[in-house]
Structures are given as C-alpha cells and as structure tokens.
C-alpha cells in the first residue's frame, strides 16, 4: 500500500495521463541498461547492446520497455492494493526470471529521471516526491512474494 495524500494522487494521475507509455517505457529500460550495464544480464537474447545508441535503438528493448511500463501503469490504477495487483508478477520475477529486487528500485529511479527529462518544469519537487512513493511501493509489491 502506498501512503499518498489526495494531492499526491492527483499529481501522479494527472502527469501519467500525458505519458506515452511506449516511448517512456523504452527510454527507461534503455537507460537502465546503459547506466547500470550489469542489468543486461537478463537480456542475453536481445541482440546488440554494445553501446548506448545500440541499446536505445534496440527494438526488443523498446518492446520490453513498453511491456514493463504497461504493467506499471496497471499498478497506478490500483494504488490501494499494489501487493495484490503485482502478486503474480512477483512470483514470476522470483521463480522464473530470478531478478534481484534491487533492480526494481534501480528501474524506478531511472523512470523518475526520464519523467523529469520529459516534463521539465512540471516535474516539481512535489510531483517527484509523489512518484518516489509510487516507485518504492511498486518495487516493494514486486518483491513481496519472493522466497
């Protein structure tokens, strides 16, 4: 559960309404792979990840980024029950994908940076603070079923 005030919820949903999920998803995942190259360990089958331009232009990265951010988007519609919403995905990331939950925190913070880059002035400290709560909540929910 994320503890957002009514004002914070408003900040989150009104900004998200303007987000191009496909574009931002690809951007965020791409930047994760560039800034923290060890995260590439999960994507051996994605082809050329040898340079920032190769990563950012990689079709599989873009497609997967869209998938990930669409799931995140789904979470935003259920902020009062993130653990329930992400229960199945949590099991998947633990049992099948074997992803260290630290990666969820890394991706969440990269997403915040991408939103700042896209929205500039609109991404005020208050809006950022609300989003930090959301990404932390999502990361927590995704780690919840780990065993």
């Amino acid at each position, binding site marked *: 559960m994320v503890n957002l005030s009514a004002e914070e919820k408003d900040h989150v949903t009104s900004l998200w309404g303007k987000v191009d999920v496909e574009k931002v998803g690809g951007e965020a995942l*791409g*930047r994760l792979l*560039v*800034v923290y190259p060890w995260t590439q360990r999960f994507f051996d089958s994605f082809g050329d990840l040898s340079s*920032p331009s190769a*990563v*950012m232009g990689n079709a599989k990265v873009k497609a997967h980024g869209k998938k990930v951010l669409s799931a995140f988007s789904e979470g935003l519609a259920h902020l009062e029950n993130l653990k329930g919403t992400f229960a199945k995905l949590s099991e998947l990331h633990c049992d099948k994908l074997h992803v260290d939950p630290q990666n969820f925190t890394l991706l969440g*913070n990269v997403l*915040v*940076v*991408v939103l*700042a*880059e*896209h*929205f*500039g*002035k609109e*991404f005020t*400290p*208050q809006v*950022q*603070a609300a989003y*930090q709560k959301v990404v932390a909540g999502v990361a927590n929910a995704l780690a919840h079923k780990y065993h």
Partner: protein
Amino acid sequence: MALSAADRALVRALWKKLGGNVGIYTTEALERTFLAFPSTKTYFPHLDLSPGSAQVKALGQKVAEALTLAVDHLDDLPGALSALSDLHARKLRVDPASFKLLGHCLLVTLARHYPGDFSPALQASLDKFLSHVISALASKYR
C-alpha cells in the same frame, strides 16, 4: 568502475555548461531530497528546511563548491575530498545511503533543466562520477 576518459570529458563539459549556476541546481536537489526522502531531514534539525530557505541555499552552495572541486580533480578524488571525508566521518556522520539519495535528486534536477543534454551516456557518466564522490566522502568512515 574507474572513470574513463569519456566519462571525464562528459562530466567536465556539463560542468562548463552549468557555469556559475551549479549552486542553483544543488539547492534544488537538496529541496527535492528533503521532500522525497524525509529521513534525510534528520541531519538538519537546526536548519529551516522550508522551500526557499536561505539556509538551504547556503548549504546548496557548499555542496556546489565541493562538487566543483571534485570535477576539477577527477584524477584524485580521494585526495581532493580528504578534508570533507574527515568532516563527514568525524563530525557530521551522515549515513552514506543518504548521499545516494541526494545524488539521485541531483540527476533528476539536471535532467529537468537540461533535457537536450541529458543523454543516456551523460546520465551514466554522471552517475558514475557521483558514486565515486560518495565513495571518497565515506572513505574515512571506518
């Protein structure tokens, strides 16, 4: 994880572009940190942390000077930051996790103000630079 020649070039170029405005961005980064990560406020009970506070601006200026010092001494960060490391280890004793939070908010601030410049490569180099600064700052802790 050493800073490559490319990392140094990108960081130096950005700092040149920031010019005399570094303090504005470090102040905004502090403001963002205090708002998004309230635990960081515990180190400043003696300061007025409200938005626009002159004390936060002064603190921002100190951080700016330290980072500029770091950029000017990329070849020897531990040496250049030795005195600051002593200060943070002996007197201030800030948990190093908090430095990471400020580092993140500085990246957010720069992305917000310089979207055209904030390429993935620059983000990577800046992130590396900041983690080196943090490492140097925490080097005397124990």
